[in-house]
């Protein structure tokens, strides 16, 4: 293999293209086609009909907005819950550590719809069904473990010495948290946030059970089309949905890079001022 790196990389490259890129081709073609009959590999005629329908429909943007809104609230709640919990489990001698870990990581193993179907009637009685609040509450359990794990990993690399030093220099608890702890945790929080947003965006069943068709997120809007609706519109919606999921992820990544760049710049300035 060392002798044919070119050949090998070409082979891997082609396999990669077939496996990853080609599956998207029919999706794109179908969204741009106008009557695409069977033996034709390419559509006979092209049109932007489906994209016009999808992009001009007010429901589309409403669904995008609600999906992102729910994902953002869920992620914010997760951050608030995960930071103290991760702090406790990493830095303190906690008795029954395995139990706390088992509780918080349980929704990764046990499918969340089991819990949501069980709690459905209780939510109905409390008036939480058909509301965004109810859907947010349903999305917390499947997403929190990932945020918790990401923050926990960040805490493991943060030595207590850093905070002790800040304490020695006279920093109180709040500035200590915002100037020492939070900057260190931020990459972990962003990694957890990407997962949290992604998982929240892709929930169909639990959103459907609690939202009861009234909270229309992207998957809820998409489903009737992909299960036997107009293939062109289904394809356009699918592409939009996938693009938003990817954009959310890329956006987080870019935010992280930008943060590091800014940090470097400000450090450089500080160094320049010092002497």
């Amino acid at each position: 293999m060392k002798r044919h790196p070119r050949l090998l990389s070409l082979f891997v490259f082609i396999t990669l293209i077939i496996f990853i890129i080609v599956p998207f081709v029919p999706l794109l073609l179908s969204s741009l086609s106008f009557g695409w009959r069977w033996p034709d590999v390419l559509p006979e005629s092209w049109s932007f009909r489906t994209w016009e329908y999808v992009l001009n429909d007010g429901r589309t943007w409403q669904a995008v907005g609600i999906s992102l809104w729910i994902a953002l609230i869920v992620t914010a709640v997760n951050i608030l819950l995960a930071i103290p919990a991760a702090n406790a489990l990493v830095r303190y001698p906690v008795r029954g550590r395995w139990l706390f870990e088992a509780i918080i990581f349980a929704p990764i193993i046990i499918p969340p719809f089991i819990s949501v179907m069980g709690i459905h009637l209780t939510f109905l009685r409390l008036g939480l069904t058909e509301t965004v609040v109810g859907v947010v509450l349903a999305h917390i359990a499947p997403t929190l473990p990932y945020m918790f794990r990401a923050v926990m990993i960040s805490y493991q690399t943060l030595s207590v010495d850093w905070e002790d030093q800040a304490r020695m220099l006279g920093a109180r608890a709040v500035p200590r948290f915002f100037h020492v702890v939070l900057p260190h945790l931020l990459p972990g929080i962003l990694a957890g946030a990407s997962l949290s947003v992604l998982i929240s965006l892709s929930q169909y069943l639990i959103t459907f059970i609690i939202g009861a068709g009234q909270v229309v997120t992207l998957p809820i809007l998409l489903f009737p089309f992909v299960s036997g609706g107009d293939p062109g519109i289904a394809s356009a919606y699918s592409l939009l949905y996938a693009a938003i999921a990817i954009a959310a992820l890329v956006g987080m990544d870019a935010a992280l890079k930008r943060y590091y760049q800014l940090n470097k710049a400000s450090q450089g300035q500080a160094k320049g001022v010092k002497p």
Partner: protein
Amino acid sequence: MWRKSKPYLLLLPAAGTIILLFFGGIFDGLLKSFGYFPAIGETELTFAAYDSLLHSGSFWESMALTLRIAALSSLLSAVIGALVALALFFLNDSMKSASPKAWHRLFQLPLTIPHLVAGYIIVLLFTQSGFVSRLLAAFGWIDDITDFPVLVNDPFGWGIILTYAWKEAPFVALMLYPVLSRIHGSWREVSRVFGAGNWQFVREVVVPVMMPAWAIATFIVFVFTFSAFEVPYLLGVTYPSVLPVYSYQLYTSGTLSDRPEALAVNMILAAITILLGLVAYYFSKRWNVLKGWG
């Protein structure tokens, strides 16, 4: 007092939320699976739902289908994922620092695609009038739509298996790659000194190194595909359906008497996933695979 209880107070919000929202829901479902519906005056606990489930043919058929689909999807993802990870590993080895980073990103693309979209991609590719069928017709390998096998909404579940293979193989590769990258270049040289070829190097060094992570990744895919809803709901048939879809069908059938049965299916599913999860956790702890998972 404060010092002692502080970590527990810090844990309280997260653990409390999960207990209330998640375990509360499971407990709620458990009570109702025993027929406990105070709202309609049913306060007696019975095993009627479990009894009728365990004696119904459709439940066992559903169970068999679920196991088959989960087993085939996880095996297929495991094989493809390992090939992908190995290919990337050797590529890195031979190209040093050229462009593999971007390729890693590309390989993770299916992971970010929502399950419903992944399912629809498989529909467009593999229905009888789908893209693959068109390509085969263009090459003259088939003459008619009906020459292409039914792979979507088929009773065997091929469409579901293909979707999972596409989505979860990159996950397996992602779990394996960090393990493989721990293999130093010097090991390769040592193996060459001892006269090992490429194939022997893979068999004697690479495979044993990646075995624990491989087994755990495959197992995680199995547990996930065993209990996932969206893909089989979109790509399966009404009967037989996988357990999560079966439960949903019972829950929304309209008759209130089916609800305890639906929740009983859920409880059985929960018990199985907990058991599988404990097995995975035990072995990953023993083999030290899931670093950072606690």
